[in-house]
């Protein structure tokens, strides 16, 4: 797994042409690192990930992957470039089997049968729960299993960058822990991870770097060490969450 730097610069995004939800936002994810994006509800965290993936078109600003400008690229092209996205809301194809969901994940290289077979095999190795029921309809899986399926489907392309939007929301604590461990290990294997999370404490535990967004703007950023040592940063976080980050 080899990561690529992904960054946005001076990004402005508006829904329905009028309501500006991102205003001059800059976020960078680096290979081998988990970059956490936190902030209150409606701050624009999901919008940042959607914009990175090309589902939303910025009105201003630029997005670069490695040293390539991908601002104008569409979502399917970015998938081809190795950006994977696990969105906030359920994204499995409910009536399709586990295997078909994964096969669709291989869409960008579907004609390379050998690579498809290898990719499916390798995610089945990583997710034994899925390997046990390859023919089950995705809708018949538990919530946690569906989340694993979404993550597995993102991993089949052997992504350089993985965008995760609240992967542990509404997931049982035990499974959440596995998801955090997996996230960390993907970064340790070299991938670039951008993690949006409401669970500030857990996010801060595995993140190398944190961005705080508020009302569609950058509010603060820093490495994990910065957040642990800088009182102002810690204060800022505790303002909108009821607890402080343990140093």
């Amino acid at each position: 797994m080899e990561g690529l730097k992904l960054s946005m610069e001076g990004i402005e995004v508006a829904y329905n042409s009028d309501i500006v939800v991102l205003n001059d936002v800059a976020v960078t994810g680096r290979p081998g690192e988990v970059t956490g994006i936190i902030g209150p509800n409606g701050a624009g965290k999901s919008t940042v990930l959607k914009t990175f993936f090309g589902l939303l078109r910025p009105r201003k600003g630029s997005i670069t992957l490695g040293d390539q400008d991908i601002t104008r690229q569409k979502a399917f092209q970015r998938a081809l470039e190795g950006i994977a996205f696990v969105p906030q809301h359920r994204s499995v194809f409910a009536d399709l089997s586990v295997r078909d969901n994964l096969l669709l994940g291989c869409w960008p290289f579907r004609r390379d049968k050998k690579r498809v077979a290898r990719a499916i095999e390798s995610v089945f190795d990583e997710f034994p729960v899925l390997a046990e029921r390859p023919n089950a309809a995705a809708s018949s899986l538990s919530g946690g299993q569906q989340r694993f399926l979404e993550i597995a489907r993102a991993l089949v392309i052997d992504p350089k960058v993985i965008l995760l939007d609240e992967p542990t929301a509404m997931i049982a604590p035990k499974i959440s822990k596995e998801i955090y461990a997996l996230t960390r290990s993907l970064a340790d294997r070299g991938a670039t991870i951008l993690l949006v999370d409401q669970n500030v404490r857990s996010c801060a535990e595995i993140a190398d770097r944190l961005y705080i967004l508020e009302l569609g703007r950058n509010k603060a950023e820093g490495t994990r060490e910065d957040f642990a040592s800088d009182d102002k940063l810690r204060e800022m976080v505790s303002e909108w969450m009821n607890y402080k980050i343990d140093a």
Partner: protein
Amino acid sequence: MNELLLQGLVNGIILGTIYALIGLSLNVIFGVLRVVNFAHGEFIILGAYGAYFAQKLLGLSPFLAMPLIFLAFAAMGYGLYFVLIKRLAKSDDPEHASLLVMFGVAIALGALMLIFFEADSRSLSYTLDPPFFMFGSVIVPTAKLVALGIIVVITAVLAFFLYRTLPGKALRAIIMNRDAVQIVGVNLERMSALTFGLGLGLAGITGVLVALIFPAFSPFIGQDYTLIGFIVIVLGGLGHPVGAVVGGIIFGLTEQTALVYTSGTTATLLGFLLLIGVILVRPTGLFGREALK
């Protein structure tokens, strides 16, 4: 069993498969593009004229014309997607906007056909030997049997495509979760254009079949088929391929058995009553789940 009723049932099944084909294409278009193709009936009639002129000008039999008309209509649909439908996605309410735009296309197409093809009813001239088969006391015209065979083959090919091939699964995945399909790198725009092409291609074929089994057609009857299509997909469930097939056959059976006992108007009325009944009991249609959302 009453002979007339038996005849009605046989007719019902055969016409039902045509209705199923109409519903199927409408449903695939709606499911993937979220576009209500109000002009479907007009495209069907255009397909009928396609067969008529292929015969008159080129001397092609309707059966040979069918694959050509499919290809021509598919190309037209692919192009129309980029000219017309793609823009709808930018509007604030694509579904309603599509309704109006396609309604406009229906009127325009109907008027154009009237201008170019004139108001006279047309029919295909062909001979099949024997012209009909007797099953006991039930008479079935050969043309209807051939149409039935063609529809069964088309439906089987379509089912294979949708349920057994990866592009077909991708197409169904769009119906299941439109947002998520972009996540796996499917080019939604291209898929949508291909789907509209497929839908119009099927409309063209339906038109040839209609021209084969009904005595005549004219530019005025497009809306009838659109209406039947809508009844079928609401019966079966919006956006659901299997639902459309079942809905089509149910509607065909209801209409044709009702025709045995009553007039055509009452039969149509019964079809609508059936529709209202289903809506009351199961607002999402027989197979629909959350397709309406």
